[in-house]
């Protein structure tokens, strides 16, 4: 009898890229539901638009590059990029915002570098930063959470959709009455104008640690992160180092002057800290690939985030911190190579 010949090992792989990407998406589901409850359907609309734009861009560029599209579109990475972008955007934005963000993320940050696995920078963060610096008005229209404000206005899915695609809001509403500064924004401006952190925290937009609503989303993002850790999709080094890199300076400065610096808990549960720790910084392609390197990389993002939030020009610094550390990855990897077995 004759048999097929193939090289060892003769075993099936434990996981595949599509499964890894699917797990990341599953892990975001609880946080997404919470986000929708607090902030309306904007997240879903942004995700849908971003996904469509991402897949379309990916297919187009792959065609132009003369590559097959079916296989690459099935890997699920475009969905993850779109999901992270949707989480980063304000919920109430014109639809061209997520679309443009996706195009930039996939075309500039991913495909121009050679596609999946080749990109130096996190595509979602490139898309987000591009939007943030190019369209500051649209990108700062945050709406308050449900229960956050007395004059909170709930927008139906239809109204949300209508605004995204036509820019029209229901009668008697305009965008200025709907939007509010984010807690990070309030704290930054408030501390600048010499108000104390405790004073600011008494406001109705604040919850126990971070912003009202925001902190629950952050909680559920952390739960999703634990699921990723449990399934071995991500490893502990980056989340732990990132949160430590954020918490250590935050605690230090808070202990020195509790009125002029935000509490460490506030940093942890506000903005994109959790999302960065478990979902953004852990993007394997753009992160450090050695264990020691991951600790340095994560800690660097945490530290830079704190610095940008505290002394920089933007209320949140996660995206910039991630991109800066992305650029440092080749160097980090170069100097953190593990000692080979048996060598000194």
């Amino acid at each position, binding site marked *: *009898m*004759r*048999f*097929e*010949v*193939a*090289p*060892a*090992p*003769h*075993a*099936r*792989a*434990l*996981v*595949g*890229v599509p*499964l*890894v990407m699917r797990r990341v998406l599953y892990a975001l589901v609880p946080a997404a539901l919470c986000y929708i409850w607090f902030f309306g359907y904007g997240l879903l609309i942004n995700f849908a638009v971003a996904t469509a734009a991402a897949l379309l861009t990916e297919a187009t560029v792959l065609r132009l590059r003369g590559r097959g599209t079916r*296989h690459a579109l099935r*890997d699920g*990475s475009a969905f993850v990029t779109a999901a992270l972008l949707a989480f980063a955007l304000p919920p109430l934005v014109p639809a061209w915002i997520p679309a443009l963000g996706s195009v930039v993320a996939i075309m500039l940050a991913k495909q121009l570098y050679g*596609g*999946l*696995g*080749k990109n130096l920078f996190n595509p979602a963060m490139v898309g987000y930063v591009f939007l943030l610096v190019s369209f500051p008005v649209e990108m700062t229209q945050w709406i308050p959470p449900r229960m956050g404000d007395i004059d909170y206005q709930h927008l139906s899915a239809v109204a949300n959709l209508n605004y995204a695609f036509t820019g029209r809001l229901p009668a008697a509403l305009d965008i200025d009455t709907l939007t509010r500064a984010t807690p990070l924004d309030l704290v930054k401006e408030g501390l600048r104008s010499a108000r104390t952190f405790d004073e600011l925290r008494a406001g109705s937009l604040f919850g126990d640690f971070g912003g009202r609503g925001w902190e629950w989303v952050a909680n559920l993002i952390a739960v999703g992160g634990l699921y990723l850790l449990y399934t*071995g999709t991500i*490893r502990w080094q980056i989340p732990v180092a990132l949160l430590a890199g954020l918490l250590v300076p935050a605690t230090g400065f808070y202990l020195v002057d509790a009125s002029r610096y935000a509490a460490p808990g506030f940093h942890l549960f506000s903005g994109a800290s959790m999302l960065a720790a478990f979902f953004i910084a852990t993007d*394997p*392609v753009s*992160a450090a*690939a*050695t*264990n020691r390197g991951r600790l340095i990389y994560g800690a660097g993002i945490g530290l830079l985030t704190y610095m940008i939030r505290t002394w920089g020009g933007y209320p949140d610094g996660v995206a910039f911190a991630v991109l800066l550390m992305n650029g440092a990855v080749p160097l980090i*990897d170069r100097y953190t*190579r*593990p*000692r*080979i*077995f*048996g*060598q000194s």
Partner: protein
Amino acid sequence: MVDYVFERHLSGGIHIPANKDTSTAQPIRRGFIPAKLVLPLRQHRGSPAEAIVQVGDRVLRGELIARAGPPPSAAVHASTSGWVRAIEDRLVLAGDGVQPSQCIVIETDGRDEREPPPAPWPAERAAQLERIRSAGLVGLGGAVFPTAEKLATPVPCKTLIVNGAECEPYISCDDMLMRERAADVVAGALLLTDLLAAPLCIIAIERDKQRAEEAIEEAAKAVNDPRLKLAEVPTIYPAGGERQLVELLTGDEVPGGHYPSEIGYVCQNVGTAFALLKLVRDGEPLLSRIVTVTGAGIREPQNVEALLGTPIAELVELCGGYNEGVLRLIAGGSMMGCALPDDEVPIGKASNCIIAATEAEVRIDPTEWPCIRCGDCAVVCPPRLLPQELLVAAHTADFQALNLFGLQDCIECGCCDVACPSHISLTERFRQAKRSLAMHDRQLKLADESEQRFERRERRIEEQRGRSASLIDRLKGEATDPDAREAAIRAAVERATQRRDRSADPE
């Protein structure tokens, strides 16, 4: 009372389904004599043995039919009685793959007649090693390194590790041997300890082999030798690799390109210990080994004590034949085994396991995604390499980077392949890269040699030129100085006269 040695650290490794239960459900099948034996003269790296029989000869069980070549090499014996029917090239499994080798083909007569027993076991160590060499004893764990050579250690042996870890999926021959012949294995281990004059012998067994461990513990208690200790090693692949086992039990790391024996450790498989006992006690050379015949493609998976040279097809027949849907026939375990083109290949000393794998058991999905740098490969890599970096270096044929990233330290265990979510055939790429690196090094060496040759030639020409120049100078001097000219003419006339005299007088 038997002491246990505690495990230390193990780098990398991976938990994968063991797939051993089906083959350990029944006892080892013994006494099978196939209709035909195919005994290869080349069974491992090193030089082949030289046949000393002719077609038509009758041979007896245990009779030497091929002498060991220059070391490293091992002799070949007839595994049972019969007639030599052919000496010809056949496909065999040798060293690192399937290749043609000269084979002695024996038609068996089923009578299993023995050679008269040899002289009793010698007392002197050199003679003992010689006897081991001529008995064709090699490591039965799969690497088939000649045992006599392994026992002649460069430094005194601190610890003998008897390897019963058997971490690779599917293989259960060592497990079954330890269950059924524990006392013999322990006795063999102590023989090895004596031969090495080792102060310590650790029998290492993987944690999931409870029954084997109990049996060995029982046997060890019975002999009550203070040199003997046991160790439970974690159920993780490749804990049973030689370097990994040394690391696990001693904490020492054997550098790539070196043998554990250079730092005082010797690893021997439990099967080897058993074979040595049979040689010492019964005077029987290496004629058979236990083979696990398993996989979803085998009707009755089990362990068989197979005569060396048994064609795999006959062995499969003995185990009920094939099931439907056999895709691949693998010699060895599923992680490092070699896929065979057909089942006429004979069982050799390295054949610890034959797997008839169906589609569900092997990877057939050819879809490969790009590397996403997740680093899962680095986590499971036992020599702590960065396979993702090696992959890039292999892709760009960056030989400097390949050396820097430790390509030569890759043990080809296959862990990275299984861990890789992009389903990249990393191990195969690294095998190829090793070949290109060897070729590159060879070319560099050739270039270096021709450069040296060229330089030598240049020097030679230069010297010659110098010599001719000085001759011309001398002649020129003679041409201008009348005295010297006179003398030169006289000398020339003298030479001519002598020549004439010599030719005139033939004596």
